[in-house]
């Protein structure tokens, strides 16, 4: 009887040692709180819930403490989470998301007013601004490149680039990129108001012209060839983006476009969200550098908004009355589609209830998607 009691008591003690309660540290608790915060703002505030809820829950999954070597953790070879993480580590998921983005994106606003594409290019200043500041703070060029891409406001591109340039920062970069994408309505308006006058905010833009089907079909083919011939290193992202768009616009591959932009992109978003979240284990994530990455991410978003709005103002100097651009669409040059365009619309309506900027802002917004992929390709070819 005594032996039996001893057996069970030692078994229970061993069981307790395996449990999370025995292995928990302060870092885990902090990360679990962060995870719950992400889930909360996703549900209560509806800030990018499709991204923040999977990432938030992923943070919970990644920060339940356990004994190493049991084949459970995301960094342990052979574990289920490790297999799912493969798609992040080797850059499989981001191009698939771009395929879906392409299948969901309507480039009509851009085709009808081509000069808006230059606004998308100017907003990439955020990427390289953050790159410079990161270098000054002592990060290596590889790390600075991975951090800078946060300014592109493009989660998949940030994951794609950081997985190659600085895999050890991938969790922090991805979380930062997605968080700031969700915080676009908070970060951008002050910069937009600061840089524009009341008169500029009320500029009415000419309504976009109707775009023919032929133009919509030609755009992904020629656009892909032009951009990928210049920056082949961005081929996985650009190829998938334009391919997805061709599926949509061709009109004869509706089923494929629906799958790419529907079920497939949803599945990949779930996988990328949960695995990126789970990769933020307290031991690797809670460092001074992660905090610096978050700071730099916010700075890059502000610089990107600054670049876009200022470029619109410069462009207006050369445009005739009636053709002028409302600088409030400059913020949409970052590729947070369509959140950044919605911010333009929201701020525009504050100053003129009948001035709808949404469709105009979609032009630089989709140009930002192309621009950030090209910028990632440039960084990759220089640094990788």
């Amino acid at each position, binding site marked *: 009887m005594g032996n039996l009691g001893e057996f069970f008591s030692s078994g229970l003690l061993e069981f307790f040692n395996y449990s999370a309660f025995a292995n928990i540290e302060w870092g885990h608790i902090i990360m679990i709180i962060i995870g719950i915060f992400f889930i909360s703002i996703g549900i209560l505030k509806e800030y990018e819930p499709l991204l923040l809820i999977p990432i938030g829950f992923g943070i919970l999954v990644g920060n339940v403490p356990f004994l190493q070597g049991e084949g459970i953790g995301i960094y342990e070879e052979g574990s289920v989470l490790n297999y799912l993480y493969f798609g992040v580590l080797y850059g499989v998921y981001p191009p698939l998301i771009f395929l879906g983005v392409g299948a969901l994106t309507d480039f009509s606003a*851009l*085709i009808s007013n*081509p*000069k808006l*594409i*230059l606004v*998308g*290019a*100017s907003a*990439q*200043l955020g*990427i*390289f*601004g953050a*790159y*410079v500041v990161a*270098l*000054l703070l002592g990060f*290596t*060029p*590889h790390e*600075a490149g991975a951090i800078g891409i946060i300014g592109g406001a493009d989660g998949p591109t940030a994951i794609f680039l950081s997985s190659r340039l600085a895999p050890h920062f991938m969790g922090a970069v991805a979380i930062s990129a997605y968080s700031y994408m969700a915080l676009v309505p908070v970060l951008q308006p002050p910069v937009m108001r600061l840089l524009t006058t009341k008169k500029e905010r009320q500029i009415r833009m*000419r*309504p*976009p*012209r*109707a775009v*023919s089907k*032929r*133009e919509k079909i*030609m*755009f992904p083919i*020629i*656009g892909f060839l*032009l*951009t990928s011939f*210049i*920056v082949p290193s961005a081929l996985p992202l650009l190829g998938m983006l334009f391919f997805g768009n061709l599926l949509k616009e061709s009109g004869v591959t509706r089923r494929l476009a629906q799958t790419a932009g529907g079920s497939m992109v949803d599945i990949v978003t779930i996988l990328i969200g949960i695995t990126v979240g789970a990769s933020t284990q307290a031991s690797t994530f809670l460092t001074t550098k992660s905090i610096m990455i978050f700071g730099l991410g916010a700075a890059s978003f502000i610089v990107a908004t600054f670049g876009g709005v200022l470029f619109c103002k410069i462009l207006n100097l050369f445009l005739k009355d009636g053709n002028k651009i409302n600088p409030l669409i400059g913020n949409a040059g970052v590729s947070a589609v369509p959140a950044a365009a919605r911010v333009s619309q929201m701020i525009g309506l504050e100053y003129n209830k009948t001035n709808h900027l949404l469709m105009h802002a979609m032009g630089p917004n989709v*140009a930002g998607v*192309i*621009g950030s992929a*090209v*910028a990632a390709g*440039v*960084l990759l070819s*220089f*640094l*990788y």
Partner: protein
Amino acid sequence: MIIYHYNPRVMRKILIYTLFFFIPLIYGHSQGSDQLKINEIMVRNDSTIIDQYGNRSGWIEIFNTDYKAAGMGGLYLSNDTANPKMYPISKNDPETNLKKRGYYLFYADNKPYRGTSHLNFTLEESEYVALYDSDGKTLLDIIPVPEEIKEMSNQSFGREEDGEGDFVNLKRYTPGATNTWKEAESKSNRIAQLDPYGVGMIIVAMSVVFACLVFIFIMLKLFRVFENMKFKKYRKAQPEETQTATEGQVLEDTSGEAIAAISMALHLHTSNIHDLESEIVTICHAKRTYSPWGSKHLVLKKNPKI
């Protein structure tokens, strides 16, 4: 009774096709082996890779410089000029087929019974290692084994760049991987030295991004030009419909919103929708109990068609 006629034309064709089929195979093998190089060796392996038996021994890395697969089967490795056929590489082991730019490791442990990758000599006793073609005479590549590296722990000796360049003491051992790792390293260091503040990167990268998007801008402008040209061509081709073409011109410059508004007005006009609705909507839930047992299509089975 079947009579077989000797048809010289048919026989010639068969002969030509046969030669076409076999010559590339014979020639291809020899061509592939030319591209194989001894890339890196290590004599004193104290703490680097272990073989499939858990042992550490000296190793030799072979690299396929070609951009297509190359087979090593039938070639020879040797450390003795008098005996070039010292170690015949197995023809039957698929692992000896190197993929493009691929690597293969041989363990110089004098234990050939352990498999294809285990040689029948060691590097400690060698002054050089040579790779011979399948004829056992043609020398494909040779690497010296310097006395100094026999004394140095975990020191690898090989080419500075994969498959080419001089043999040097490598700064880092890279069994089964590229020797040119330092290039990537130096690329990062170089950019850190040459452009410490990233200003050059900003200028170059932003220029490239702008160049890309300016090209798309020009392309979109050209789209517009072509669309207009097409429209003008259409208008010229149908002079009798001058009135319609003029209307078309107006529509071309009209925004999508205006077109939508006109279409809606026409739709309302033609549909004769003008009654004022009460604007009260009543939703009444029709309760109907459903049971799959009552569904004919679930209960009755169709007879198979014969």
